[in-house]
């Protein structure tokens, strides 16, 4: 297991350009391209773990909402094959 180093958390992975206006640093976590956030709103700096925590929390919330509304979520992909 790689030891936790607080300093490393402050260095985000290099960005991958996903579109004209969005980048990705962590898999499936997109960010507005920082070049669009230079005048009125500036990007905040998050430790890497916090970025991932926020994204994971969002997924937890969506999963909770599914369970709140129904017992089972039916897969559309399964129905496509029928």
């Amino acid at each position, binding site marked *: 297991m790689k030891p936790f180093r607080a300093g490393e958390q402050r260095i985000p992975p290099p960005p991958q350009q*996903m*579109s004209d*206006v*969005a980048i990705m640093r962590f898999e*499936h*976590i*997109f960010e*507005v391209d920082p070049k*669009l*956030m*230079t*005048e*009125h*709103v500036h990007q905040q700096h998050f430790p890497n773990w916090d970025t991932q925590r926020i994204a994971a929390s969002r*997924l937890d*919330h*969506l*999963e909770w*909402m*599914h369970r*709140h*509304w*129904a*017992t*089972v*979520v*039916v*897969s*559309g*992909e399964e*129905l*496509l094959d*029928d």
Partner: protein
Amino acid sequence: MSAVATPGALDDRALEELAQVLGAEHLITSKPARMHRARVPAPFPVHRWADHLPDAVVLPGSTEEVAEVVRIANRFRIPVVPRAGGTGLTDGAVPLRHGILLDLKRLDQIHEIDLENRTCTVGAGVNMLKLNEILGKHGLIYPDDPASYPCSLVGGRIGTSGWSLIGSRYGHTRDLVLSFVHVLPTGDIVRFGDGGGAKISKSSTGYTLKPLFMGHQGTLGVATEATLKLYPKPEAELSPFWAFEDYDSAHRTLRELVRADCATFAGAVIFDEHKVAYLRRDDEAYIPQPENVRALICAVLYGNEDEVRPGGRRLMRIARENGAHYLGDEISQGDWAARHDRYATPLHGRTKAGQVVPMSWHCEDAAINWTELPAVRREWHAIVARLRNRSDVFDDWGMFAYTSTRTGVDYLTEIDVGIWEQELDDETWAMWVQAKRDIAAVAVAHDGSISACHGACREGEVDLVPEELGGAYDVMKTIKRTLDPLNVMNPGKYGLDGSFEEDHK
């Protein structure tokens, strides 16, 4: 003393009487508490917040206390504005004449859950999500599902006659509320439902009054307790999202999906290319989509699993035959789950140069027939494009349209406009109010209704209400004057002050 309620009527004597009824701790006059309740999420110029400041906030704990507050207001001619969650987008809960802000949040009790008749009776300050957490333990659900589901309250849903995302399956607030206890503008307490029983869904005894006391935006009193219709919590949910290369194909497919008439069909929504373009800015589901994705449809089914699956197969087949591309389970399930909670979405727009700016969200929400959707869409985008050309304060966030009912006759048709609230000055506010008039006029010209969901009493749109309703608007004024002779309840809303012109003179 004035013949009708007027600003500035709340004096020390009235405050003393309110404190005697409520207890001093439930009468608040501090500026933060009043500022906090001076507005709703819809954008408004920051420098004019004081225009909507109540003079005092009261937090009654029972129907009797609400009634007593209204009686005191009548004696002293003080305006009263009821407020539940304060999530409305047409300023229903915003005081236009100051006065007493009647905050309903302490009416948060669940009085009864009747498992035999499948009803529950709750205070007007109960939130649907919290209620459903409790009902879920009994295998039941109260399926009133606005975009403000986690933060709006039952009383506000009655006051606005709210619209539900899954209303095509379960009905909207007016269908789901069986009856409610209501404090009239005079302070009298009555129950409105179908007939006299609290749990009756259909009666022919007397006038059908319940709908009259829903959607009045607090101008005809305030509901304090409601008896609600409950359903079994669904076994299964299915929410496929499909992509299309153009709006017209999606629009035609929408009709075919609705005409399939699946029993578990709970709703369908179409997104236009402006909405897709907006989502491509920062939504992880849509940034990676190919450029030929220019319109979307989502259909939603709820019910027993052995009914949802065959219905879903049928809709999948219809979508495929109409050229749709399924977006996959991850996007479909994730995006639908997020639709129950749009108020948690962080909002930012773009200047014309593409820079990110903080914006608030405003949405117009007309009721439009399926045949008129393409024309209304074109005309509304043209109005917002003119606004944006004139100022970076405005941003077009696209349109969607949801089925209001299972037959697909009409759609909650929404254009979302980002507004840079901190930069909203008198000039840009005037531009926006005129745009709201223009947007409402398009809805009326296409034989629609200005609002399917929020109400139509905000500055701009409200000017078109007499045109939309014709002679029915005169009946509204007559009812208002009859039931609220001192114009105590939410004065200024819906232009109903016009009923009291002689009194003001």
